[in-house]
């Protein structure tokens, strides 16, 4: 078990999310094919992953808003070392940091492009990938 982390490892070692915490609406959105982010009901600022208070206005009220998912690659790297037994077979796998057109940033993976062709500034769209019955991971693919 991780300490203070939001993920559990299954028997296979693949890191999976907790589905019952404050980020539950994000995971439900992914199941429904939407990228939903927590948004302040007072000032409209996004905050993600979920937290109680808005960093801009301090408010607690919020809604979960489906965003476009359009963004650009802010940076990228390739994991050669396996920190999670369940991902060892996937190495080297990419991790990209995507900046959404609405502003928030997300760590994710980019599919549909060879790792050597990853570039910052690439326009990307969401790609919904089912990894278990209960979990859909929102990855990204090239596209406007």
């Amino acid at each position, binding site marked *: 078990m991780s300490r203070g982390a939001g993920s559990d490892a299954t028997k296979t070692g693949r890191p999976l999310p907790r589905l019952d915490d404050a980020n539950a609406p994000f995971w439900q959105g992914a199941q429904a094919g939407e990228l939903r982010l927590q948004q302040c009901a007072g000032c409209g600022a996004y905050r993600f992953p979920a937290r109680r208070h808005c*960093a801009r206005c301090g408010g607690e009220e919020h809604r979960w808003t489906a965003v476009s998912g359009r963004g650009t690659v802010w940076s990228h*790297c390739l994991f050669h070392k396996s920190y999670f037994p369940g991902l060892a077979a996937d190495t080297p796998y990419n991790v990209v940091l995507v900046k959404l057109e609405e502003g928030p940033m997300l760590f994710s993976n980019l599919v549909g492009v060879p790792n050597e062709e990853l570039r910052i500034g690439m326009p990307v769209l969401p790609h919904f990938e089912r990894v278990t019955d209960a979990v859909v991971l929102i*990855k990204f693919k090239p596209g406007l």
Partner: protein
Amino acid sequence: MVERSLAGRAAAVGVGTTAFGKLPGYDDYDLGVWALQEALNDCGLAMADIDGLIVNRIADYQRFGEIVGLNPRFVSITPGQGRMSGWCIETAVMALATGMARHVALVYGNNGRSAGDRYGGASDPYGSGGAGFWFPWGMTSPGAFHALMFQRHRELYGTEHRHLAHIAVTFRRHAALNPGAVMREPFSEADYHASRYIAEPLHLLDYCLINDGGVAMILTTADRARDLKQPPVYVRGFAQATQLADSSFPPDDFWQAPMAQVARDLYPMAGVGAQDMDALMIYDNFTPTVLFSLEGFGFCPVGESGPWVADGRLALGGKLPANTSGGHLSESYMQGWALNVEAVRQLRGQCGERQVQGARHIQYMCAAPLVTSIVYGRDPR
């Protein structure tokens, strides 16, 4: 800005280091006590003279005080993050300046290697705070965080692997001259390029070492410092700034804004500028941090740090030697502490083969969400 009258009011008078490497059987407290005894021997003070205690990475100040039999008036404890070493030293100066303590011991103990500490993955107690949310995508580790930053620097400015190689090779050459360093075998740029990737674009040799060890420093006021065994090394200036908002993600500016703020506060307080430094001690958790630091503090223009380091400038004998001990990359990852001790030993002239001749001013700097920097000098002003 820090009150400028504090410049030169405190001095490092005692420094102590344990062996570094694999020290099974010693926990963080044991390593801290060992280092503190070395620091007391160094300056000639007795344990009973210590009336201020600041511990870092050691789990509990109360237990530490019990182990060494101290009832210090002033006490502080900080989390096991390397960025905290600079802050602890600043705290000591403030405690001395306000009269809350007369002799402050700063004690660090790290048994991370023997304890099997990990910086990444589900068992990482240090880097994971809120970062566990991203584990399902395989994102973890401070190394990957810095790999993302370097990749961006690379694509924005054309910075190259050979620039990182130069830093890694240079600091290893320095470590070869340091009997206390863990990794002393020199390697070539070709060896660097051949070393395996961890989080590409970073190679194994871009990462610091995880080792056991302890470091202690004793600071006192300038007037008391003059009566002790060693020549005082004065804290001429110090400053800090943070960039905590949105800090789950790498900063757009490689922490330039907080570093520039620190530079604006630091040099006027110290009464000397970047051009007056005889050596630098740069927090080198990963090689790219060295580049970001040089840009942030204005040693070179933004985006030009790669070519700037590639002409041998940071090597002993170069224009601005850096991390003469080998740093975190090759001496040991003592989270900033051993770099501060190296600054003190250099200014005392105790560094043997790796001595920077005639060094008068040395700057320590740490680029992170909490940026700190300290200018040490042989003279108080």
